[in-house]
């Protein structure tokens, strides 16, 4: 039996790595991938707790997370394409449209 703590520690490590990537990488696509990493860390936590309590709800939640992640990837990539088309770059340093 592997203690659930290990799984949680693994999830924490994954989450922090994803977060590190989001905050540090400049390529918008890689940033997206790192967001996927963070989502997977959350999924892992759900499943670990489901195992800990012997409850199936965690699995259902993980399903929903995957579905939402798919939606998010579709929209996010569409935005990346649109931005690349109008600006010719996917570098977040060059995209500062949130300023007025």
């Amino acid at each position, binding site marked *: *039996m*592997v*203690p*659930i*703590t*290990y*799984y*949680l*520690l*693994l999830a*924490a*490590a*994954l989450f*922090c*790595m994803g*977060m*590190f*990537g989001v*905050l*540090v990488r*400049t390529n918008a*696509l*890689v940033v*997206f*991938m*790192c967001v*996927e*990493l963070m989502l*997977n860390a959350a*999924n*892992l936590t759900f*499943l*670990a707790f*489901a*195992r*800990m*309590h*012997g409850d*199936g*709800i965690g*699995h*259902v939640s*993980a*399903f*929903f997370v*995957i*579905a939402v*992640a*798919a*939606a*998010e*990837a*579709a*929209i996010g*990539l569409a935005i*990346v*394409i*649109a931005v*690349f088309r109008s600006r010719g770059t*996917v570098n977040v340093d060059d995209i500062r449209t949130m300023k007025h």
Partner: protein
Amino acid sequence: MNVELVLFGAFALLTLLSAGLVILARSPINSAMALVSTFFFLAGIYVLLWAHTVAVVQVLVYAGAIMVLFLFVIMLLNLGESAHRGKPTLSRILGGASAVGLLGVLGITLSRVPAQPANLGPQAQATFGTMASIGQSIFTQWLLPFEAVSLLLLVAMVGAVVVAKSRI
């Protein structure tokens, strides 16, 4: 030293290695490939947690569909290795440091919480994490959220078309 622990250790190590590659690789295509492998190893971890169905869906949807989408976009945009790595600005340093700090804090916190998996009886062992039990739960108790998610996917589909179109 039991088999489970060994497997867990192997998968965890490989997952972390692949994840490290994702955030460190220079070329986005390398990042994407590393991410695929991360998902595969994570699916292994899921199996260790008796979440067989989720593990299958992880491979099918994540490693299959979503990552293909990523690769398509990378090829479509013809992104090679980025010329510059990005300047180490104050916000990057702060952000990276806080991510590392968060890992430390979470590590301290979690290592103080001893958590053990539940002892499931033989009947529960037979149904836990199976497609049948999850489906039952989704289509009875969680029907409304499920339908909402399906609507969300529809909206995302239409939205993606509208946003990415050059001209309809």
